[in-house]
């Protein structure tokens, strides 16, 4: 069963948390890290990742740094000051979301 759709609304906090933990990252690195951390459970497609990164950059949550890597240019993303604040809020929200799901799915554990 493809479970990617279950993670759809959580991509933003996932990416923000990854950037918070790793400082700066580029697109491909993010997709691979998510894939590795979730043991292939979640695979972010390029069509979902890049529009999200661009949107977060436009909202001032992410900032961009360009770097020449050999014969190509790499775009690194990192959290801005307001992005770090936003990340804390997002983490609280996602924790509340997980707790709510837990209550619904497994009321005994809640």
């Amino acid at each position, binding site marked *: 069963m493809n479970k990617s759709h279950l993670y759809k609304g959580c991509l933003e906090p996932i990416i923000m948390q990854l950037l918070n933990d790793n400082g700066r990252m580029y*697109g491909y690195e993010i997709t691979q890290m998510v894939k590795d951390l979730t043991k292939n459970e979640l695979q972010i*497609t390029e069509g979902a990742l*890049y529009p999200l990164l661009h949107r977060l950059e436009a909202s001032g949550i992410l900032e961009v740094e360009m770097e020449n890597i050999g*014969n*190509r240019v790499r775009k690194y993303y990192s959290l801005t000051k307001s992005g770090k604040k936003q990340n804390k809020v997002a983490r609280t929200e996602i924790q509340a979301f997980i707790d709510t799901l837990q209550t619904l799915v497994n009321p005994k554990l809640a």
Partner: protein
Amino acid sequence: MLNDQQIEILHQYCECKGVSYYDVQTELVDHLADAIEKSQKKHPEFSFREHIAKVDAQFAPNEFALITKNKSKAIRRKYFSEFKEELYSYSRPPKILFLFFLYALLLSLNAYSHYFYVILQLLPLYLSINFMVWKKRLKILYGFHLFDSKKPLLSLKSIKWVYERIIITSYIPIILLSLYLRFKEFDRNSNFFFLTALYPIFIVAFISAVNIMYRIRFKIEKDYSKAFN
């Protein structure tokens, strides 16, 4: 590490997928190159073309077009919010002093010269005729020549789009109001009040637009120097 020729092939691949903008291409090329390099380690027996085909299979048919479309929307929004931020900075110290200075200047010019009010009314009309007659000269005056680059850039196209809209939106009300006041007789001081209230806002909007445009334009040149050389 992929060689220059292979990177060029990836740029052409993006072009074939409908991504003609160099700045969008660079990010996708880096992504594709990483994916191909990983695939090369796993399957060294495959040719470069086979690796491209393998990576290509992971993309949905309209994925590249979707990325370009969303990036365009996102950067336009970003540039508009940078402009708004710059414009609002004129309502706070220290830049608010500049706004006060403009009001004081217009009021004193009006007090000392009888012709100033008429000039103020006719200035937008003169500038709009300029727009129509001396397009090339004004292209340089308003900085539109800065939007030329050797390779097409989505960020440059977007800042031009935003800049044009800001200039036009801050221009049209001034022209219409000036024309209205020109043909409708009011007492001189109340007419002048309308103009003085609007002119400094127009000037500040224009300065903010130019500031933002230059800042973004030179950042784009720094980030994508190959598109300008």
